[in-house]
């Protein structure tokens, strides 16, 4: 997450926490102001801890822990922050008195809030935050037509890698790669739509007109992360991962699917086309292909991106072939990705 968007998120969360805590303070103590102030500081500190400390610093450690341990660790951390903020701010309002700092109902309130938050965040980790919010709010209960930018990612040589590493090690490998790739996607505002075998499908909502080229930035960040981690991967697994990517945009129908297991499905031509582009990537031996339909919807990316127009891709059942560019990062050779992908 960029510094600015993290700051914006922290202020929003702090405002929400201030509101909740003001209501609690009014009911429990008969005055809303201390609750609002303490809630705001608490919300700001908690979200800073979540977004900056946990996401950026403790995430790799937390990710390796079992779900329930992560959940408890997070709850304990949030609870500790709440107690600390309380201990500092309550004396400001009431003068120092230990009984008031550690009143039982306040502690129970702080504990419940920490628990509920960590459960919600834990579940959001399972489903993806956007999916959880989308289903809870009922946004896609009636299917909607939405314009999305799509990023399809396919690991190179995964069959050979699976054979070489064997089952459990291959899962570890996939997990490490998926963590790097999805970090790059989520940091740039994308949502992970689905894992299909060794493929990742990510999506961005598009506003009318030109959009920030976050999908390109995500792709570049993903390449950079794998390049930066190449040594670590070689040490741990004996090979460095690489991927091919297809970037496309178009209107898809978004809707809830299923009853015993629910997900938000994306259905439409652009999904099939993007899958077809990924095949073309392989056939043409390019690291990434982007459709003109997508590029026309994006503002010019910052320097460092090279695009090369290539022959349009004929699609089954379509009269007009798909106009494409091949995408590369400056300094990286356009045709050959890496030995492992060749």
């Amino acid at each position, binding site marked *: 997450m960029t510094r600015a968007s993290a700051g914006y998120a922290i202020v929003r969360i702090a405002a929400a926490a201030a509101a909740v805590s003001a209501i609690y303070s009014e009911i429990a103590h008969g005055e809303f102001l201390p609750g609002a102030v303490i809630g705001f500081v608490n919300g700001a500190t908690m979200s800073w801890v979540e977004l900056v400390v946990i996401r950026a610093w403790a995430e790799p450690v937390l990710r390796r822990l079992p779900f329930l341990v992560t959940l408890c660790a997070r709850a304990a951390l949030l609870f500790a922050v709440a107690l600390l903020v309380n201990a500092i701010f309550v004396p400001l309002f009431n003068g120092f008195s230990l009984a008031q700092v550690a009143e039982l109902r306040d502690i129970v309130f702080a504990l419940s809030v920490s628990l509920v938050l960590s459960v919600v965040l834990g579940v959001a980790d399972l489903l993806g935050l956007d999916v959880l919010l989308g289903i809870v709010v*009922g946004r896609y209960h009636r299917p909607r037509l939405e314009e999305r930018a799509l990023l399809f990612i396919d690991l190179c040589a995964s069959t050979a890698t699976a054979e070489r590493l064997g*089952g*459990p090690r291959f899962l570890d490998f996939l*997990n490490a790669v998926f963590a790097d790739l999805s970090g790059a996607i989520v940091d740039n505002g994308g949502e992970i739509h689905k894992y299909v075998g060794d493929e990742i499908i990510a999506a961005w909502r598009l506003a009318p007109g030109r959009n920030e080229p976050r999908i390109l930035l995500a792709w570049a960040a993903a390449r950079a992360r794998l390049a930066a981690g190449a040594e670590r991967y070689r040490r741990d697994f004996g090979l460095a991962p690489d991927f091919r990517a297809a970037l496309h945009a178009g209107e898809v129908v978004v*809707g809830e*699917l299923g*009853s*015993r*297991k629910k997900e938000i499905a994306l259905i439409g031509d652009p999904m099939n086309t993007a899958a077809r582009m990924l095949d073309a990537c392989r056939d043409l031996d390019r690291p990434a292909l982007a459709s003109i339909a997508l590029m026309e919807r994006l503002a010019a990316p910052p320097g460092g991106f090279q695009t090369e127009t290539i022959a349009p891709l004929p699609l089954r059942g379509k009269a007009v072939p798909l106009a494409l560019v091949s995408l590369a990062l400056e300094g990286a050779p356009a045709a050959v990705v890496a030995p492992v992908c060749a």
Partner: protein
Amino acid sequence: MRARPSHMGPAVGERGAPTWLTPRLVRIALISAALSALSGATYGYLVHDALATGLLFGGGLGALLALLEGGVFHGVAGAGLRRAPFVVYFGVRAGAYVVLIVATLGLVVWLLNGPAALRAISAVDILFTMLASVVANLGFAISDLLGPGVLLSFAAGRYHRPQREERAFLFIDLKGSTALAERLGEAGFLRFLDAFIVDVSREIVDHGGEIHKYVGDEIIATWRLKPGRNDVGIVRAWAAASGRLADRRAAYQREFGDGAEFRAALHAGFVMVGEIGSFKKEIALIGDAMNTAARMLDACRALGRVALASAALIDRLPALPDGVELAPIASLPLRGKAEALALVALALAQETPRPLEAAI
């Protein structure tokens, strides 16, 4: 065992137990009674200094709530409620919990101490009831999003270290999906797919399967296998899903102008099962058996069969359910394998109308 369960009237299994009373539900009922007794005892001890009362009341309520779960949410109201928006689903559930708990509490207090004692029920008691109902139902509702068993597996850390497991696989592929998508348009196709998945996955879950994944218009379901022969419901689930879609053919035709049919591949083998992902987590199944099952689904299409089952699976089942017929076909050569895969084709026997007594 009959291949096709009855969809007429109150369904009763052959052992006389109601069909909704599945082992899974009994397990849930026991867990619910235990959890409820535990929280009742904690609350009773902390607030009213009455540990035993809280324990008994909580345990009894847990069993009662499990009846509500089984009879209503998994029984009569299950299918309709599951398709409502999440907030409605969750609200109705939590509301029913609160009403049932408060009513039971009132009744018990009345019976033990007379009507005057009702005043002793405090706002704190009601608040605790509401909180407990919300938390419990949040758990249920989220578990429903992830699919049966998935939330528990994550919570227990069962696949945090990858496990090698033997599983039976049912791969299901909607027939004619490209043509359907073109004819119905994308939104219409999504509704069709949703109805199809709801019908099929209901039979999978009722027959003890886990829904692993939806991939486009495919459903992947699995059953855990123990060593030796296993009486798993995979073939019964396939037969019941085919039967359900045949029964509902008229309804599909009315709504979409076409019935739903599917192809299926049934296979068994070892896979690695492990958690995968960080911002979105899944339980992944990795292994040859998955690729082989996908390959069998292609073969189904190429050979024009409704279902193919591998001998590897059939050998692990005690017997085929009544009403399912089996025809040996040529083995399927697989890329990179020396030995071809031995296969049989499955088909439903022509149905004879069932005597009414058997259905009730």
